[in-house]
C-alpha cells in the first residue's frame, strides 16, 4: 500500500504502473502519475505516443493490461465505462462523438437523463422535470444555444465539439477529461474552445490531451509528456519546456 497522507485531498486521480498492450504491441509502458485536484493537467506527445490509450484508461473506456487506477482514492481499474459518469468523471472523445440524428438539445437532454432515469418505460420523458431547461442552460454555457433545434450532425465541426463538451458537463463532473478538443478546428474556433476550457476549469479538474505543445503550455498547471508509450517528463510547463529529452522529441515539429 502506498501512503495516503497528503495526497488524498490534493490528488483526484492516480495511475500505478499501468500498461496497455494491443496484441504484441505495447502501446503504454508502466505509467505512474498523479493528477492534482482543481488543476489543468495536459498530456502531450507526438502522434502515436499513446496519449489516447492513456486517456482511455483514465476515462474507463477499457481496463489496463496491468497496473491500477484510483479515482478519489477508490480503485476504479475495472469499473465499466458507464459507471464513470455516475462517479463524477466525464469525457469528450478525440473523434467527435454525438448522437448525430437527434436534435442538439435532445443530445444534451439524453445526457442529463442518464443521471435521473435510465429504465423507466412508462412515464412520458417530457414529464421529467427540468431537463429541457438544464439542457438549454448547458448549451448556452458552451455557446451553441442558438443551434438547439438543429439536428446534431448538421452542426459545424466546432459546434459539434462544443456540443460534446456540453454533454460531458451534463453529469456535473468533478473530473473532466478532454481528448484533443481542438482537433480539426480553425484558429478562431480553437481560441474559443481554449477560453471555454479555462472557464470550465475554474470549477473542476481538467485533464487535457493535446499533441500541439504550444496550445496547452499557457493554460496548464502541469504537463505530462508521453513518447513511444513511456512517460518522458512530468512537471510544470516551464520545467517541461526546459527538459532536454522533450526538446529532442519535439525538434523538427516546428509548426507546433
Amino acid at each position, binding site marked *: 500500500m502506498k501512503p495516503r497522507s497528503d495526497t488524498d485531498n490534493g490528488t483526484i486521480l492516480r495511475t500505478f504502473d499501468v500498461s496497455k498492450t494491443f496484441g504484441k504491441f505495447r502501446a503504454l509502458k508502466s505509467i505512474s502519475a498523479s493528477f492534482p485536484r482543481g488543476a489543468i493537467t495536459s498530456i502531450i506527445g507526438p502522434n502515436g505516443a499513446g496519449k489516447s490509450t492513456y486517456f482511455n484508461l483514465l476515462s474507463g473506456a477499457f481496463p489496463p493490461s496491468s497496473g491500477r487506477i484510483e479515482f478519489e482514492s477508490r480503485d476504479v481499474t475495472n469499473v465499466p465505462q458507464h459507471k464513470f459518469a455516475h462517479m463524477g468523471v466525464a469525457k469528450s*472523445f478525440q473523434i467527435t462523438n454525438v448522437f448525430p440524428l437527434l436534435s442538439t438539445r435532445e443530445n444534451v437532454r439524453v445526457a442529463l437523463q442518464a443521471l435521473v432515469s435510465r429504465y423507466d418505460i412508462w412515464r412520458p420523458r417530457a414529464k421529467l422535470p427540468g431537463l429541457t431547461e438544464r439542457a438549454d442552460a448547458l448549451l448556452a454555457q458552451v455557446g451553441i444555444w442558438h443551434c438547439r433545434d438543429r439536428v446534431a450532425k448538421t452542426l459545424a465541426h466546432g459546434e459539434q465539439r462544443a456540443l460534446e463538451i456540453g454533454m460531458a458537463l451534463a453529469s456535473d463532473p468533478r473530473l473532466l477529461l478532454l481528448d484533443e478538443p481542438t482537433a480539426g478546428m480553425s484558429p478562431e474556433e480553437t481560441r474559443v474552445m481554449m477560453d471555454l476550457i479555462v472557464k470550465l476549469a475554474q470549477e473542476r479538474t481538467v485533464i487535457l490531451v493535446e499533441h500541439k505543445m504550444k496550445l496547452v503550455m499557457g493554460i496548464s498547471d502541469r504537463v505530462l509528456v508521453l513518447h513511444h508509450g513511456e512517460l518522458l517528463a512530468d512537471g510544470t510547463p516551464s520545467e517541461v519546456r526546459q527538459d532536454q529529452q522533450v526538446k529532442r522529441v519535439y525538434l523538427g515539429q516546428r509548426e507546433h
Partner: protein
Amino acid sequence: MNDMSQMMADVPARSNSLFDVAVRHRAVLASLFLLIFPLIMPFKALAANILIYGLYALGFNLLFGFLGLLSFGHAALFGTGAYFCGIAIVHFGLPWYVAILIGTLGGAGMAAIIGALAIRTRGIYFAMVTMALAQCVYYLFYQAESWTGGENGLRGINVHVIDIFGLKFDFLDPLTRYYVIAAFVILALFALSRILASPFGAVIEAVRENEARARASGYNVLLTRLLTFILSGAFCGLAGALAALHLSIVPIEMLHYETSGMVVMMALLGGMGTFFGPFIGAAVFMLLENLVSLWTVHWQLIVGAVFVACVLFFPAGIWGTILRKIRP
C-alpha cells in the same frame, strides 16, 4: 436527410402543427385505422392475419428500427408465444386470457434467453447468432412432440366464446374475432407508443445513435439492448398467442427461419424506425401474397420484385416515404 433525422427522433416536439399533433396521438390514429380496416377489407380472416403479423412486425421493429439491431431469429419469439398459448389451452385447459398472458411472457422469456446469449455480438454476428439460436428453438419444439404435436403442429386450440367482464363474444364469427384480436393489438400499440416516448425510449435511441457516447453518458448499453430485446419478445409473443387463437392450431412453420426473414421484409417494406410503418409493411406484404397467389403460384417472385423495388426506390419504406411527403 433532415426529414429522416427528425423522423428517427421520437416525439419531443411541443409544436402544435397538425402533423406534430398527429404524431403525438399516433396510437389513437393507428387504432382508428384498425377499427375501420375490416370494413374496407374483403377477407376478414386475412384482416385478422394482418393484425397479427402487423403486431409481430411492430415488436420486431422495436429492436430493428429503434435500437438498430437486426435479428434473424424473431420467429423463435413469435413461435414460442404461439406454442405457450396453445399449450396452456390444450394441455392445461387454462382460460384464453391466461393463455394469452402466458404466450406473451413466453415470448419475453425466450427473448431473455436468446438475448443473454446474443447481445454481446453486433451486426452480421448478431443476425447469425439469433438465427442459429432460433433454429435450436425450432428443433426443441419439433422434438417435444407430446407437447407440441411435432411436425403436425399443435392442434385443438378451440376457443369458441370470448367472455370479457360478462360480455360474451362469438369467436367463430370472423368480424367479431377480428375485433377481439384488434383490442389486444390496440393495447399493444398504446404500450409501444408509450415505451417509445418514455425515458427508456430515449435511451434506446441514444444507443442506436452512438454506443460509445451513450456509455460515456452513463448508460449501460448491454443491459439496454437486453431489455429492448425482451420488450420486443413480449410484443412478438403476444402476436404469436393471438395467432394461435386465430388459427386454432400452431403450425411448426411459425418457428421456421422463413418466419424470421419475413418480418425483416415487412419492417423494411413499411419503414423501419417509424412507429406504424412495419404494420403497413405487413399489410402490404400479406395482401400481395394473397392477391397474387390467386392468379399465379409464383407469387413469391412478384412479392420479391416489389420488395426489391421498394428497397431500391423507397429506402425509407412505404410509410416512411409517405411521412416525409406530408411532413410540413
